[in-house]
């Protein structure tokens, strides 16, 4: 059997007396896109910094492709895009790409990379003069330049317009098809839902849930029911299996843990029920539910 691509074993990390990670154990398989989700301060960025060897491991054990993070870094095993990182911004796009290409054993063809990252025409522009979205695309290209087997991407689409976002998703999907593994840290649930094979939900330094997007969604057996009704919010709250009620744009939105039971009772109480719609909970609802159950008091960001 293949050994996992990334293995964290009982990893804890503290900043002073604040715990950022608390005995986290994770395995990430190769050839997959793994999404790391969690509210701000959940420990995502600490986890990524530990994986990349940018922070010393305080307790526990981390292996990336069977090596310690610092050894894997020297071998050029990954390409990364970090929120906390930037570049020497007086350099132009092509100068940065050439510099990074010189660092890896088998760099990509620069021209096709410029194409792929949508940087045509910007080659001779200094980084400091690029727009936020263009900068983000340069950082993405720098992550790809070494043709790594693993991409570690922290919020890669923040600041991108919808078309550029889709473009980046396409590149990630293509790389995955070529056998590249991806660890994706994101705040966008649609991004995780579209790209990820595996999801890890982190909250307050602990792993809250781990599994496929479907299995995460099924952990919260919720459905959302929308309808126009003459019942008051209080009357709705007394219906069976109702978890929460909201009034949204003249419609009522009811979160239920057992949609048929709620609906039967609701229809019995209000024959004029109208404009009915029932939706299974999406990843976002599941995520909010999971992380709300364990409210975070002291946020580390």
């Amino acid at each position, binding site marked *: 059997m293949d050994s996992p691509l990334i293995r964290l074993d009982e990893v804890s990390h503290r*900043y002073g007396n604040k715990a950022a990670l608390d005995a986290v154990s994770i395995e990430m398989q190769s050839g997959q896109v793994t999404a790391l989700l969690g509210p701000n301060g959940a420990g995502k*960025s*600490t986890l990524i*910094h530990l994986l*990349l*060897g*940018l*922070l*010393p491991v305080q307790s526990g054990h981390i292996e990336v492709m*069977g*090596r310690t993070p610092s*050894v894997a*870094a*020297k*071998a*050029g095993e*990954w390409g*990364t895009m*970090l929120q*906390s*990182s*930037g*570049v*020497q*911004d*007086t*350099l132009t796009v092509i*100068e940065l790409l*050439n*510099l*990074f290409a*010189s*660092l*890896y*054993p088998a760099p990509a063809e620069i021209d096709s990379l410029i194409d792929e990252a949508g940087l045509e025409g910007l080659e001779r522009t*200094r980084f400091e003069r690029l727009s936020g979205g263009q900068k983000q695309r340069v950082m993405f290209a*720098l992550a790809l330049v*070494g043709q790594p087997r693993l991409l570690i991407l922290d919020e890669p689409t923040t600041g991108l317009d919808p078309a550029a976002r889709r473009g980046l998703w396409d590149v990630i999907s293509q790389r995955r098809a070529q056998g590249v593994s991806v660890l994706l840290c994101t705040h966008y649930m649609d991004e995780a839902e579209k790209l990820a094979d595996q999801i890890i939900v982190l909250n307050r330094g602990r792993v809250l849930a781990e599994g496929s997007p479907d299995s995460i969604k099924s952990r919260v057996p919720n459905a959302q029911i929308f309808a126009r009704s003459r019942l008051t919010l209080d009357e709705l709250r007394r219906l069976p299996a109702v978890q929460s009620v909201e009034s949204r744009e003249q419609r009522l939105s009811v979160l239920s843990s057992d949609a048929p039971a709620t609906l039967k009772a609701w229809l019995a109480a209000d024959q004029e029920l109208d404009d009915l719609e029932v939706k299974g909970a999406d990843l976002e609802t599941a995520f909010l539910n999971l992380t709300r159950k364990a409210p975070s008091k002291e946020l580390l960001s």
Partner: protein
Amino acid sequence: MNVARMPIGRRLVSYGQFIYCQWLNLLRVPAYTIPTLVFPVMFYAFFGILMNPGASAYLLATFATFGVLGATLFAFGVGIATERAQGWYTLIRATPAPLLGIVIGKWFGAALFSAAIIVTMCSIAGFFGGVRLEQSQWWGLLAVLISGTLPFCLLGLGLGLLLSPNAAPAVINIVYLPLAFLSGLWVPVSQFPAWLQTLAPWLPPYHLAELALQVTGVRPGEPWSHWLALLLFSAVFAVLVIIGWRRMLAMSK
């Protein structure tokens, strides 16, 4: 565990890239180029040629020392503080880049500027100040000043690792200008009050200036004690670098 090693040739290419990018970076930052390149040369033209025509050779050695001191301290100190805050080193550390590449790139960048300052000053001294040196002395001045910048590289590196990019230019000016004056780079130490003269040997630029004065034949003497002093100062500043490096690692997030 087998780690794919980069062939030596490719390794050299990445060092070359770091040096090239460092030059471009310094050339494109006017806040660096103007003060470090123009001011020392201008000061030498005023004080060394126009005001003290009899001391042009002496002041060439000391103002050239002043020039390389600034070029080195600012390239390392302000450069590293700025790039650290930009997150450049966070990204570089996550690549297989040799960390030494950054330091070597910086050193070449500072050395190129130092050489430009020295050559400009020597030209002014030769054409307008009537300073006549042997060819070996011109080259000696260049070689001594550039290799003698080691302690200032380390001082700048240490300060760059410890200071924020906002504080770095101010703090480095506060270190740089008094250090230059008290080491006798503007006014010869012999004209200081007696108690101030005893302070000068405790400052690293004094020793570099003495080496520059010896190599240009202005002052006779053995260079070894000054080289030794520069090495000792380098060791002290290396400790500062280690403290700064550890702090950066602990704070990287």
